[in-house]
């Protein structure tokens, strides 16, 4: 099929370049209610995504037009010819600043083999199930429902410059709801765990942690009106908060006016009282569904430091945006590593604070730096005692508080992220419900 598509593209003489991404996915899925399977699903699909490029000039200006289309495996040659012809026609009216296509690499570093490659998908579905339900042993709470997905995904990218890269990856996902009931109403919490390798302890421990958090939420009181005491973010909210530094460092964001960050800039300001951010991207992070030898263009990936001690050292740039900003390409790497901070988790909690463990949806606006989220569970420490609280919200602006934030010494890994398990912020607005 790939050769068929490539030949049809070559028959369109107006096309000056192309890339084709083939992905073949086999998957098994189980859907549980409590501990019983409610439905099982399987799938086997193949997809082709084709981008055609047309170089054109107007006066002294050089442009690269492009259009992307899907080719379905059930398409006839006539259909493929039609959709590629339509894409080529559209590309002729797309006037983007010129950029070169990715050149072939001498070699690609291989991903370490996942344990999932050693047995069949149904075998691993059973192992994942056992790991997930291992700690579902409590009387007052447990897993209400759970969905387990395991994909075996083969990706093959070729382009007109000679790029030819392929890779086999595994993508696991467990989405589960934990519930707990004490004296009041039963409560629930949501969690989704992504992984590329089998680690039973990661899954079992996460279920246990979520059950413990659910138990706390079941006895939580209403969040009081706390005004502006320090807020400690953990878990998914800490990751979302720190991911702001990733998004703002992208060359694409700078080119498209979303980010104003400049190389060499002290991102957190000139007078920083707290910890400075150091951020590295590692395409080979262990047990991450984002780990990959090459990016969407077939560009070979390697670990790279983006921010060092609060200073932007490199933009995260694929071939196109690196050319636009006249910087070295890093390729698109999605694994994010943030260095640990100066204080232990225990030290961060030394004064009165609100530690938020779960939000409905912690939202960060990459344009303005505004962040907010409704509290599903937090612990309020008034300087003497700690109580679980729920309801209300926290909000603030990263740009206004990043000159004094504190990162924990302890690290936490969650799929494509490894970084401080806790981030302490000052000047955050807490809207209580009491």
């Amino acid at each position, binding site marked *: 099929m790939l050769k068929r598509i490539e030949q049809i593209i070559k028959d369109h003489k107006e096309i000056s370049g192309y890339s084709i991404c083939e992905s073949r996915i086999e998957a098994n899925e189980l859907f549980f209610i409590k501990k019983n399977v409610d439905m099982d*699903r399987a799938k086997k699909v193949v997809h082709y995504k084709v981008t055609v490029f047309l170089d054109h000039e107007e006066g002294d200006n050089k442009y690269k037009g492009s259009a992307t289309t899907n080719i379905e495996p*059930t398409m006839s040659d006539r259909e493929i010819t039609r959709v590629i012809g339509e894409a080529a026609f559209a590309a002729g009216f797309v006037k983007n600043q010129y950029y070169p296509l990715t050149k072939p690499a001498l070699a690609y570093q291989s991903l370490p083999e996942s344990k999932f490659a050693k047995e069949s998908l149904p075998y691993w579905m059973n192992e994942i199930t056992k790991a997930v339900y291992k700690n579902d042993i409590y009387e007052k709470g447990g897993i209400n429902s759970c969905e387990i997905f395991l994909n075996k995904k083969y990706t093959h990218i070729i382009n007109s410059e000679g790029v030819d890269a392929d890779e086999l990856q595994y993508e696991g996902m467990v989405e589960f709801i934990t519930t707990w009931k004490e004296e009041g109403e039963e409560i629930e919490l949501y969690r989704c765990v992504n992984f590329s390798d089998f680690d039973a302890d990661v899954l079992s421990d996460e279920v246990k942690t979520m059950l413990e958090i659910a138990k706390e939420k079941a006895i939580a009181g209403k969040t009081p009106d706390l005004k502006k005491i320090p807020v400690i973010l953990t878990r998914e909210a800490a990751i979302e908060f720190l991911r702001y530094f990733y998004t703002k460092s992208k060359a694409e964001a700078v080119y498209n*006016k979303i980010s*104003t960050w400049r190389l060499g800039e002290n991102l957190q300001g000139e007078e920083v009282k707290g910890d400075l951010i150091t951020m590295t991207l590692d395409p080979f992070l262990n047990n991450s569904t984002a780990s990959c030898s090459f990016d969407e263009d077939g560009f070979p990936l390697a670990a790279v430091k983006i921010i060092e001690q609060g200073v932007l050292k490199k933009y995260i740039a694929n071939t196109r945006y690196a050319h636009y900003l006249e910087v070295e390409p890093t390729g698109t790497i999605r694994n994010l590593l943030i260095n640990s901070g100066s204080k232990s988790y225990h030290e961060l909690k030394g004064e009165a604070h609100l530690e938020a463990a779960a939000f409905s*949806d912690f939202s960060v606006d990459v*344009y*303005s730096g*505004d962040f*907010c989220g*409704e509290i599903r569970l937090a612990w309020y420490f008034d300087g003497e005692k700690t109580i679980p609280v729920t309801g209300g919200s926290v909000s603030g602006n990263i740009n206004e508080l990043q000159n004094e934030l504190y990162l924990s010494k302890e690290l936490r890994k969650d799929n494509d992220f490894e970084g401080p398990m806790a981030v302490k912020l000052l000047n955050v607005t807490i809207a209580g419900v009491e």
Partner: protein
Amino acid sequence: MKAVISDFLINSKPLIRKLIDMLSDSYLYVSVLGSDTRGKSYRVSKTVTEVKDIAFAERGFVVRIHNGVNYSEYSFNQISEESLGELVDEIKVKLGKVSKDISVNSYQVIEEETIKKSAFGELEVNPEEISALEIIKGLTEIRDSGLAYSDLVANFEVDYNAYHISKIYISNKKELEQSYHLGDAYLFCITRNETNTKKYFRSFSGKMGYELVNELKGVAAEVAEQGIALLEAKPAEPGEYDVICAPEITGLIAHEAFGHGVEMDMFVKNRAMGAEYIGQQVASEISVMHDGAAAAEQMASYLFDDEGTLATDTTVIRKGILENGISDLLSALKLGTTPTGNGRRQSFERKAYARMTNTFFEGGKDSLEEMIASIKKGYLLDGCYSGMEDPKNWGIQCIALLGKEIVDGKLTGNLISPVVMTGFVPELLKSISMVSEAVYLSGAGYCGKGHKEYVKVSDGGPYIKAKVRLG
């Protein structure tokens, strides 16, 4: 004109019937949903122009069987006369083989009525017949008028997505087919001064063709003006306020507060507090809320859902009383209720769940002017940014793009942003005290279940006055 269904799906029908016949030798129930969704996504900004297939483009099938105990599904996108036997063998090998260590829920076999129906949506201008040149040119003119508004506009983007959806559903008793066009569009601006960067957008949507783009014309300056005004917006002082929700926010509340809360697969899992409140007062007496693919003509209007159930119009809340939930086929089977045509999939590759379609509050008798005049200190909330459901505990989180300050019954011109609205659903809905007449629905975004399974929905309603907590 009417939408034309995919030739591929029509030509595949004999093969699909053969597949169903072959599988029916082994299984008591077999059905196949076929989907062929095409469409283009255009994006024109100051810096980039992009043309690609829409994110939901797909062509493939999902077969559902009763495996003797419950239901199993297999998704595939390759089929031919020659490979049919191989496909049947693969389905038999892969489905219904859950490990003996794991217990399973049982479901009765679906009883279907014999039915054959077709529906083809109306549209004025078929986007497939408009050249890329014309579309890019039209969007570029709109972009340029946004960029020209002020130097404070750092970037201005115009997005247009054209969807052409074709689906067939075939079982031993049913043969259904439908095709229709949808369109959605965004005007999106980034504004920047020395200290702030803000975004503002306006969205457009409809079950229609390229005529949607006409609605974008002449609006770019308004979007830029509002984006610039946001640069001076202040954060909300936390507290409880009288607010007026614009239709987009009314829709967001309908969607997050009670839409997700009455998805009946959540009843099966004991994940929805709504199950215990059927027949009880959950909102003020002037509140009437609907959901249904047959309840309105918008982004989620269709003849049949992704399980072959015909669309309906469900009255969820009538005069403040919670009356009905919305249901997929298997949840209805489990609960002994009637399916409402809300079984929807993100794609043929995904499971069907109970999902919303067009969700909205009915209009009332008040005017917007009367509503503003009735507020001593509060805000008019406008522009939907995001929301998150909590069907189990009825918490709600809605984020609006902005709030327009109202003091002594008049808009002051001051803005707050961002606007985070949180609260307990029945408290919020019971506080609805005024409702305007006209109802507006929109659906340019997507609805997820948890953090995945995205489908197109619409929501809306009139302007409503309520008491909410802002943070």
